[in-house]
């Protein structure tokens, strides 16, 4: 050996070494209703006429709720709100495909899914008003909204594991966005689910943006579906603006998951509204793109389908909107009537048995509030937002 222990200089080879790339895998998109309105009648899922009409009503409800909640926020009567505008087919199609026994792990934009599964509109509004009681998710089997992106995915895997151990006929259904698929929790969660054969469906609404970052900036992967393949999970890529295709894809995914094969569904869609009411999307995306996706509006596409099937004549569009408006008005009144919370509320529920120190902190604070009632005035007058 010479004294010179430096490594050899890297060179180049001209041998024929095969490399694999994602482009080698052809990932198709499952679609039933073409954007131009055509479809193959034989491909329509086996749903009753009523169910087909319900899908439309739920999408209208999702849209109206988003519109009205956004307006409420503008008037200072709701906190920050995340709209699902443009994603109605993904939200409603998936919500329709899952069962009440399934546990939903929401990420915030899927009001319709939760409403389909029993959450009251009042509680939805209370949640966005920042009232903790709404996180009970009463009437629906849901974990609560994952605001920390991706954090619910390993939890969903764990719940699915429990469902499998119990022999329950149910799945964990996690809603997530494309941004979540960049987090560590996503990768650990789906890998874990794959290893334990968890009955879980990871429903990714690839709405092209995570706040301001476009999908191209989010990942070098061509699709979210391919990420799942890397972990041995099955994947379905579906047109997220085609409610029938989403319904069918999630139904199929659910069946596979029940058999012990977790599935990731990537619904390709577009967030037509802002990330939340605190965001201004005009800063990061151009009108042309927004307009382009507006042409692929899920409600319009489905309306054309219902017309072709002769079902739209059973739907009075104005009446549906009026009904939703009325429901919304009632929900706002009910939310307004919701009893004001006491300050003790923030000290309760943390532990099964509240420790003495926490009792003491509450007592000290209550004494202060009694001595200094101007605390209430101060809080009342503090600039909001």
């Amino acid at each position, binding site marked *: 050996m010479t004294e010179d222990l430096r490594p050899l200089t890297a060179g180049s080879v001209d041998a024929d070494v095969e490399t694999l790339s994602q482009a080698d895998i052809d990932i198709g998109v499952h679609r039933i209703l073409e954007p131009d309105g055509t479809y193959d009648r034989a491909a329509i899922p086996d749903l009753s006429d009523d169910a087909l009409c319900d899908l439309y009503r739920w999408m209208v409800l999702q849209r109206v709720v988003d519109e009205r909640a956004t307006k409420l926020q503008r008037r200072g009567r709701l906190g920050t709100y995340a709209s699902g505008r443009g994603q109605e087919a993904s939200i409603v199609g998936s919500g329709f495909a899952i069962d009440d026994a399934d*546990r939903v792990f929401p990420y915030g934009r899927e009001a319709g899914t939760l409403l389909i599964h029993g959450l009251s509109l009042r509680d939805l509004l209370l949640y966005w008003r920042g009232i*903790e*009681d709404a*996180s*009970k*998710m*009463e009437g629906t089997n849901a*974990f*609560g909204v994952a605001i*920390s992106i991706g*954090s*619910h*995915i*390993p*939890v*969903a*895997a*764990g*719940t*699915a*594991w*429990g*469902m499998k*151990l*119990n022999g329950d006929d149910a799945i*964990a259904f996690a809603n997530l966005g494309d941004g979540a698929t960049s987090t*560590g*929790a996503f990768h*650990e*969660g789906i*890998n*874990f689910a794959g*290893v*334990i054969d968890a009955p879980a469906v990871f429903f990714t609404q690839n709405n092209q943006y995570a706040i301001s970052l476009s999908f191209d900036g989010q990942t070098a992967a061509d699709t979210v579906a391919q990420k799942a393949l890397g972990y041995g999970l099955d994947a379905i890529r579906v047109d997220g603006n085609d409610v029938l295709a989403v319904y069918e894809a999630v139904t199929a995914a659910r069946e596979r998951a029940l058999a012990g094969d977790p599935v990731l569904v990537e619904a390709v869609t577009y967030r037509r509204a802002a990330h939340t009411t605190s965001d201004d999307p005009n800063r990061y995306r151009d009108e042309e793109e927004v307009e382009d996706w507006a042409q692929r509006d899920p409600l319009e596409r489905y309306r054309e389908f219902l017309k072709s099937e002769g079902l739209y004549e059973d739907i009075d569009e104005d009446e549906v909107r009026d009904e939703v408006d009325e429901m919304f008005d009632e929900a706002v009144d009910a939310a307004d009537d919701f009893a004001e919370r006491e300050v003790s509320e923030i000290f*309760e*529920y*943390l*532990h*099964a*048995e509240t*420790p003495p*120190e926490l009792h003491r902190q509450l007592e000290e604070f209550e004494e202060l509030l009694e001595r200094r009632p101007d605390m209430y005035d101060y809080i009342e007058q503090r600039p909001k937002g």
Partner: protein
Amino acid sequence: MQATIVEAINDAMHEEMGNDDRTLVFGEDVAESGGVFRATEGLQDEFGGERVLDTPLSEIGIVGAAIGLATYGFRPIAEIQFSGFLPPAFDQLVTNASRIRWRTRGELTAPMTVRTPYGAGVRALEHHSESLEAAYAHVPGLKVAVPSTPHDAKGMLISAVRDPDPVLFMEPKHVYRSFRGEVPEGTYTEPLGKAAVRAEGEDVTVVAWGAMMHKTREAVDALDDVDVELIDLRSISPLDRETVVESVKKTGRCVVVHEAPKTGGFAGELIATINDEALMYLEAPVERVTGFDVPVPLLAMEDFYIPQPPRIEEAIRETVTY
């Protein structure tokens, strides 16, 4: 029976898995191999592969899955192989486990235990020696338990598994096998949130936990002219303020010993508590003996980092002669 701490922990899991079939044990290398410290040895043989499971290398996945199971009615015991690998899962502890009861107004709860060997002194690799108990104790809703004896290790672990809320169970691996103690057969519990007075004394209160209990005991034994009241904190959160404060009111002096870095360490919280509740009883400033504000050094220097009995002796002597 006589057992080491790690044997007592193993015994506790055998007991509780036998008592409650909703109890699962999982983590890296816990099933087939019985754990790198043999803490889970024999569990898979007795309870099967469905309840004792090797997971992928995946701290976020392990703790996240424990939350999913716990909120679904199970009693998971998840192992994080070394506490130095817990930080990735800190997100799950903070974001989900510790607050799920509060957030859902009691609809969902996370009765889960995360076991993790912690602390320096076993000549391990980097990231195998941390003691970040103060950081975890800072998370509202998360209990943090640190036993120092085989008896407590078994009884407190059974309490942790039965606790209706999440418990981080930090095991002082430096003393996993260094001595044996009496461990009752069968099921028994030791409460969480309750300190133990290991020796009664009049001159000074000395508070320690985990492996530092044993270093402190050595120091106290060497100081035969000082009458020390020795408190084993056992739970960092919830904190048994009363036992500490009452003792300090009696002795008027206090020394806190911990292995974790000084700044932001749990000694600071104890000193603040003493200031709040026993300031007028103090005859000397409360002293603390801690690790330094540096990462735990690799094995060549780690013994200098760990508070050793001579340092502890000095602090106690300075406090009583102040």
